[in-house]
């Protein structure tokens, strides 16, 4: 009897033990732990191709940039990841600011566009640009036709009273995309006029979504007429054949720089550096388009996917990543937006 109660208690522990046995961490030899911040298909293409070419086993996890940043902070005392590839540049800059990532100068730097190197300089060599995507909006062609209004081409067109409750954009508190809009408008029109614009836009916004790309999805489904997103997010749905048209606003627009950083304290530092160099090569950057990602690659010699929004034909503002990427300015703008825009009655 004693034995039985004993065995029972032991089983309880043994159950947990055996669960542990099935899951001991993998050996650290010849491997690379990659946190990936773009969409799944592109992540998978990157990890499997690198694995094939080098024989280094890649363990890849896909997460949004904000999630990776939160995880890096949580793991700071005992890092698990080696490389953080992809995702909008701001969290990369913040991680650099907090010393969560490592300085590195790749031999491939000489082939990169200036904007990619600007990110590298802004991050004190701790992060580098791998792709760029311009901010804009996508509109549902059927809905706009039904409303009988001219096709929106500029930021100003979004203030049309007929679009009341028919524009969606993410909440800048939760989304990097929407923060880019906030910073873009402030840089494009000046802070006071910019906030006036956002207040006017507020009347037309039906919903501030949580995720940055959600308005594109809503516009493609017809749940909203216009969604303010990164243009390449709208292109994805247009390529699928949905009735959505991506637009680069006529007044000019800001952009994001998708970035890459090496995690400080990486357990496989050599492999992380190998990946870093490889990811900046034209061949690696060509993997985006087949994976339905239409951002502009950062290597000058990489082929730009034909569906990609042509950055050269857009009016791009001179986006100040250092200023608007800093924690202080970000907090100030977000607090101001919360108080002066979001709290407004409709």
């Amino acid at each position, binding site marked *: *009897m*004693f*034995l039985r*109660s*004993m065995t029972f*208690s*032991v089983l309880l*522990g043994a*159950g*947990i*033990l055996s*669960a*542990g*046995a*099935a*899951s*001991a*961490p*993998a*050996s650290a030899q010849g491997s690379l732990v*990659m946190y990936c911040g773009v*969409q*799944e*298909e592109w992540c998978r293409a990157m990890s499997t191709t690198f694995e094939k070419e080098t024989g280094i086993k*890649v*363990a890849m*996890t896909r*997460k949004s940039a904000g*999630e990776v*940043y*939160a995880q890096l*902070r*949580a*793991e700071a*005392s*005992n890092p*698990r990841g080696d490389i953080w590839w992809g995702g909008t540049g*701001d969290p990369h800059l913040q991680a650099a600011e907090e010393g969560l990532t490592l300085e590195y100068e790749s031999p491939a730097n000489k082939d990169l566009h200036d904007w990619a190197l600007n990110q590298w300089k802004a991050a004190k060599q701790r992060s580098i640009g791998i792709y760029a995507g311009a901010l804009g909006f996508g509109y549902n062609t059927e809905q706009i036709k039904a409303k009988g209004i001219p096709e929106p081409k500029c930021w100003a067109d979004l203030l049309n009273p007929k679009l009341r409750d028919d524009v969606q954009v993410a*909440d*800048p*508190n*939760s*989304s990097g995309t*929407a923060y880019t809009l906030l910073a873009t408008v402030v840089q494009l029109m000046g802070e006071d006029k910019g906030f006036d614009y956002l207040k006017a836009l507020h009347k037309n916004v*039906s*919903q501030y979504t*949580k995720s940055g790309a959600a308005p594109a*999805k809503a516009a493609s*489904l017809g*749940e*909203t007429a216009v969604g303010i997103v990164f243009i390449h997010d709208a292109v*994805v*749905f247009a390529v*699928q054949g949905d009735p959505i048209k991506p637009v680069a606003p006529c007044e000019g627009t800001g952009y994001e720089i998708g970035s890459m950083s090496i995690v400080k304290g990486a357990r496989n530092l050599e492999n992380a550096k190998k990946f870093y160099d490889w990811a900046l090569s034209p061949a690696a950057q060509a993997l985006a388009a087949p994976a*339905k990602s239409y951002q502009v690659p950062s290597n000058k010699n990489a082929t730009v996917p034909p569906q990609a929004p042509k950055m050269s034909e857009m009016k791009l503002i001179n986006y100040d990543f250092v200023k608007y990427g800093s924690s202080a300015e*970000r907090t100030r703008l*977000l607090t101001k937006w*919360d108080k002066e825009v979001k709290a407004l*009655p*409709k």
Partner: protein
Amino acid sequence: MRPSTRLALLFGWLGYALMPWYLPEGWDLAGYPFGRAGTALALATSGAAPWLWPIGIALLATTLLAVRAETSFSGRALVTAGLCGLVAFFAQGFAVTLPDQGIPWLAALLGGAGAAQPGMGFGALLTLFALLLLLCHGLAYRGFCRGDLFTTSTIGVVVLLIGHFIFLPVATILRSALVDADGNWALGEFAGRLFSSTIWGLGCVGGSIACGVAWNTLILGVLTGLITTLLGLACALLVLRTAMPGKRLMRAMTVLPIITPPFVIGLALILLFGRSGVVTGLMSEWFGIPRSRWIYGLPGVLLAQVLAFAPIAFLVLMGVVQGIAPSLEEAAQTLGARHWPTFRSVTWPLLRPGLANAFLLGFVESLADFGNPLVLGGNFEVLSTKIFFAVVGAAHNQGMAAVLAIVLLVFTLGAFWLQQSWLGGKSYTTVSGKGDAGIPAKLPTSVTVLSAAVIIPWVVLTAVIYAVILIGGFVKTMGRDHTPTLEHYRTGFAVDFSHGLFFEGAAWPSLFTTLKVAAISAPLTALIGLLTAYLLTRQRFVGRQLLEFTTMLSFAIPGTVLGVAYILAFNVPPVEITGTGLILVLAFVFRNMPVGIRSGIAGLAQIDKSLDEASTTLRARSFTTLRRVVLPLLKPALVAALIYSFVRSITSVSAVIFLVSAEYNLSTAYIVGRVEAGEFGLAIAYSSVLIVVMAAGIALIQFGVGERKLGRRPVALATSAAEPAR
């Protein structure tokens, strides 16, 4: 010393002297018994890890006692040795961790100044377990819990597990609410955040701006709790107490939402009721009702939550309605009461513990729910999503997240406290040892009609939603292009037979991991949950209420916060398990355990203690009583706990979104990725596959556990059905 205590001691030495003490890197045993794979004994004697000495000394002291007869002295000595061993164990574990961390002064005291050690492994675990058992056995020798070894040991194990896997992570995260970025105490900042108007603002009462998140959350939770409880009750009464046709089908239908991955119900609701939805389109064509966005906000979230959580209330109330002894109702009728007074004065009061539990679960689930508010919330903000975006959003404010988590916790615990005070000290015992073969009373007609009127539209809605989900996987783009295709299933679940069996589809790896994790965690959850329920209701010991309180904590804490808390607490030694499958299993076990406990408590409240006592009088030990008397009567609770934890392990998102790793990715994380990429087809197809898998799992659990047999006449319903209607 009793034989089982000697066995515990043997385990202790096994863990200390033979098994590798630390967590191995891979299965590399190089250098055993020294180095990374070394045993504690070898490491301590060779001087590599002197801080392991005290643990060995505690074991040695116990060994000297092993030969002595059982006296009150040996009990006291065993308690002392066990306690000292445990203290030494935890002291070295938390003092000596990574370089420059841990507790330096304590490390220096233990002879390990400046030293570092990796995470605890199997040797350490076994030793810890043995020390704990020695302590508990010592307490039993001294007369605790009537000297029952099983009871004291189980209490010890449960307390340790809950303390380590609920209390520690929760304390870690809550601490971050009180400190600023540099780790200094910042109470002013805390107060400012806690009383901010974004949480408590009442703007919506007078003006047009939104209310604080706290009120939104509370309103949503109360509504969801009430509606799910009523639906669950109506459904349980109809299924168990009437001869309504199509009951089996209804039962199956009501359980469907529970096995549906999150996001999918929300997605289906948008496809149906969104501005471009199918139903909205029909309504505007037929009746001229203008297309609107009513689904985004409180109505949509409430609808989705009711659809998703009513089945939980149903499962809880099924067990309770089943357990109400018909003899009580028969007695009322013999005394001349009609159907309605019988229902009102006998059946209804006996339903109260079940109702309170069902409401509590609905309320708490609603508070913790993350997927539905995310998809359908619109501008209606609730705490769980706000917490998530405080952690991962552009603001990255972990302190704010912790403050919001505290508010959420207070709500949940408040509900828990209210439930306790409502039920009070009344007795709800209905399953006793006495003859109890009555015929369940017929429901009053008004109750039947009302129940049916509520249930039928719900069942129809559920059916429509599942039609959408089923069809969605087989057409190109639901709502736009309805060309039949198998493409979504091919992308996800292709199998290549050309060179042997090769699982080619993109969804296979995550599906296999999910199933493995769910299959391991479900039985553990049920086991620990029911054991804890048994301890909480049937045993009296110091700190019982604190234990009950702590178990509710993990349920009240939203998934996201628990996820971050697990990373913070278990990324560094002594327990270093992030990035493994084990952390997923543990997160699921301790997150789902409260349901096992609640259903166990509700079930146990109905079973008369005299049954236990009879068993004890017949000289059965508490383990035998538990296994042969209580457990068979608890089968509905066991089924509920198993099903719930199995299903929740498969469908949970927020708790695991930080815990999944490259090697251990889960289905839901994969589906969320698909939804983000706009590939609804694949997301819906994968969800359909998960639904089928979970249905099979549930059938297997129900078949494996079987029904509880209460000696009641099975002809009851047939007879009452044959009666002419009044």
